[in-house]
C-alpha cells in the first residue's frame, strides 16, 4: 500500500500524540494507534488491534525505561499486578472468541467512564 504525503503527515502527527499520551499518562496510546490503523491504513478491526501492539510495545518500553530511570517504579506492587495482568491476558485471549465484539466494547466504554468519574473525585 502506497501512502500519500497527506496520510504520512496524519500518521506522524497522531502517532506522536499517542506516544506523548502513553509516556505522560503511562498508557492509553494504543487506543489512538488502533484508530489510526482503522481510519488511515484501513485495516479491519482485529488486524488493527493486533498490529497496534507492534507500535505500542516499543513506546511502552521506552516510557517504562524513563520511569525506571527517574525512580518512579515500586517493584513489589509492580510484580504482583504484573502476575495478575499476564494471567488475565491469557483469559482475555480465550474469551475474545466467545464474546461478541460489540458487547465487550460497550463494557469497556462503561468501565472507562466509571474509572474517569472515580479518578476525578
Amino acid at each position, binding site marked *: 500500500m502506497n*501512502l500519500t504525503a497527506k496520510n504520512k503527515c496524519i*500518521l*506522524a502527527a497522531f*502517532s506522536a500524540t*499517542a*506516544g*506523548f*499520551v502513553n*509516556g505522560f*499518562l*503511562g*498508557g*492509553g*496510546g494504543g*487506543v489512538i494507534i488502533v484508530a489510526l490503523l482503522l481510519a488511515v*491504513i484501513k*485495516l479491519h478491526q482485529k*488486524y488493527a488491534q493486533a*498490529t497496534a*501492539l*507492534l*507500535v*505500542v*510495545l516499543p*513506546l*511502552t518500553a*521506552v*516510557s*517504562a525505561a*524513563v*520511569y525506571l530511570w*527517574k525512580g*518512579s517504579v*515500586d517493584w513489589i506492587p*509492580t510484580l*504482583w*499486578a*504484573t502476575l*495478575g*495482568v499476564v494471567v*488475565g*491476558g*491469557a*483469559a*482475555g*485471549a480465550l474469551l*475474545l472468541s466467545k464474546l461478541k465484539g*460489540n458487547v465487550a*466494547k*460497550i463494557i*469497556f*466504554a*462503561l*468501565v*472507562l467512564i*466509571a*474509572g*474517569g468519574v472515580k*479518578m*476525578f473525585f
Partner: protein
Amino acid sequence: MQVFLLILFGFIAGIFGGMGMGGGTVLVPLLSFLDLPQKTIQAINLIGFLPMCCVALVFHAKNKLLKPVGIGWLIVPALALAVVGALVADSASNDVLRYCFAAFLLTVGVWQLIVAIKFAIAQKKQSRFDDNDTKRQ
C-alpha cells in the same frame, strides 16, 4: 489484602488487554483504589503491559493478524514523543497526572460508547434488511 487486590485488578485489566482493548486504561483507575501515588500506578501499568504484549504478539503472529503497513510512520514519531511525555510526567505532580488521566478516560469512554452504539444500530438495520430480503425470496 493489598497483594490480593493488586493481582485481582491486574487480572481484570489483563482480560481487556488480552482482548486487545486497552487493558492499561482499565488498570490505572482500578489501582487508584489503592493507596499508591499516581506515578507509581503509571509505572506499574507500563511495566505490567510489557510481558503480556510480548505473549499477545506471538499469538497474533501465529494467527497472521499482524499487518505492519506504513508502521515506520507510526513508530518513529511515537517513540520520540513517548520519551518527552515520560519526562514531562516526571516533573508533573501526582494530582495533575491523576486529573489528566481522568479526563482522558472520560473522553475515550464516551467516544468508544458512541462507536459501539453506532455499530449496534448499523447491525440492526442490516439484519432487518436481510430479513426483508429473505421474506421476498
